[in-house]
């Protein structure tokens, strides 16, 4: 589905991502793990086109998207749930979801989004900024799904969210994958969540992939050692 090759990202002179290579298969959930400052968010943002990449190639479903702008990448099949959720706080819940409909040309919010997140239907006329953190996270996911993506990127979705809701979220994300047959890339620091959800785990350190393992034969202690300081 997604293929990233020889991928470099830098802020001015300082290079953050050094020649990264990885693939994501259709219907697969990949967790990218790493400590703070190792380039997880930079990688996610640049995959989305929010910050430019220096060199390398990204293809989605065989189509080269490396030179596309953010909104074109959404059209090509990317969906993005950023760190800190970044919902539009002065707009209502319904309007927030509708921003995601721009590329699909749909007029109304698809019913299955409200089925996934019933709380959003209840709160559809509230302003996004007045929701709780967990509700905002659901809203951000619903907004990304509204554009009917083939690949969903989530940047630290568990940040600032209570453990019981984190477990719910893992279940919902797997449900979304099974229903819609999309691929998911999630960057994460919480190992239990990653183990819950992922089919494959990548560990990045200083902008390079240093470890890769399938969920079935994962060595928890080893990954934990990468995450501890």
């Amino acid at each position: 589905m997604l293929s990233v090759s020889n991928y470099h990202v830098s802020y001015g002179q300082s290079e953050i991502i050094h020649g990264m290579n990885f693939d994501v298969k259709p219907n697969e959930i990949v967790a990218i793990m790493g400590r703070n400052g190792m380039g997880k968010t930079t990688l996610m943002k640049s995959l989305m086109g929010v910050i430019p990449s220096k060199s390398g190639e990204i293809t989605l479903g065989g189509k080269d998207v490396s030179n596309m702008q953010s909104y074109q990448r959404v059209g090509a099949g990317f969906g993005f749930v950023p760190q800190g959720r970044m919902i539009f706080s002065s707009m209502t819940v319904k309007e927030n979801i509708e921003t995601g409909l721009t590329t699909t040309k749909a007029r109304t919010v698809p019913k299955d989004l409200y089925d996934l997140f019933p709380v959003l239907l209840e709160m559809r006329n509230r302003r996004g900024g007045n929701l709780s953190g967990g509700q905002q996270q659901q809203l951000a996911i619903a907004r990304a799904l509204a554009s009917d993506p083939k690949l969903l990127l989530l940047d630290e979705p568990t940040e600032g969210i209570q453990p019981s809701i984190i477990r719910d979220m893992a279940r919902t994300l797997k449900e979304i994958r099974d229903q819609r047959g999309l691929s998911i890339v999630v960057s994460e620091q919480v190992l239990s969540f990653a183990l819950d959800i992922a089919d494959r785990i990548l560990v990045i350190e200083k902008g390079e992939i240093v470890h890769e393992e399938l969920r079935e034969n994962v060595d928890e202690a080893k990954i934990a050692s990468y995450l501890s300081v």
Partner: protein
Amino acid sequence: MFADYSTSELMSIFAMQGFAGLILFSVFVLMALGLAIIFGQMGVINMAHGEFMILGAYVTYLTSNVFSEYMPSMFGSYFFIAMILAFIAAGALGMFVEWALIRHLYKRPLDTLLATWGLSLILQQIYRSVFGAREVGVTLPDWLMGSFQLSEIVEVPINGIFVMTLAIGISLAVAALMYKSRWGIQVRSVVQNRPMAGAVGINTSKVDRLTFGLGCGIAGVAGSAFTMIGSTGPTSGQLYIVDTFLVVVFGGAASLLGTIASAFTISQAQSTMEFFLSGSMAKVLTLLFVVVILMLRPQGLFSLKVRR
């Protein structure tokens, strides 16, 4: 100061000044709506807003000349065509300016102040070179002249009613566009968080260009309406830019309803006081009043209650 007048005279004076205030209110609303979109929503401090307005006024002047020269029989309806042309001309110039200048400055809002001030000087000189330094006026079609006599003392001018209708119509159209249409949703999301709006699939640069163009286009229509009330010169726009910013800031920068409420307050206060005091005293009192309110409520009259 009220002692010289009888009660019925006072009532009539308040009614007439109230109506004059309503006309001033309509002009304020028309000018401030465009700026509320550009400054209130997009955060661009557009010092050239008055010049976009004057462009609309000159387009109206040209249209009226063309009609009286070549199509005198259609002269009665030129005003509607002039307004549409004014909207298109000012909007097109606005989109060009956005492309050439403003889009490079979204991350530096204070720099837009200098850049657009420079632009306003350039436009003023262009108007001076093309149309001359003398002020021009347009001839109104007959149906816009005259007034309704409501009582012995109270009369209301027809062109005032026309400007008011226009202001109400455009306010409703802008409100519907911003709060009911899909395009409005895109504009508001781009304004709140440009990178994120791109990442949900919105073509932010296109939205920015059209939004800026719309704001300038509305300024053009305001200028067109302005020709009914005052004459047009290269620097006429300068006189109004301060009032317009005052209205938008006082109303609460991000709120259209606030803009309208503040235009109403300021224009009514101004117009009623002008009758009893001198014009500059009225202005001083209005400004003092606005300053005091803004000290107590820095966010303006209306603001959104939302967690940030």
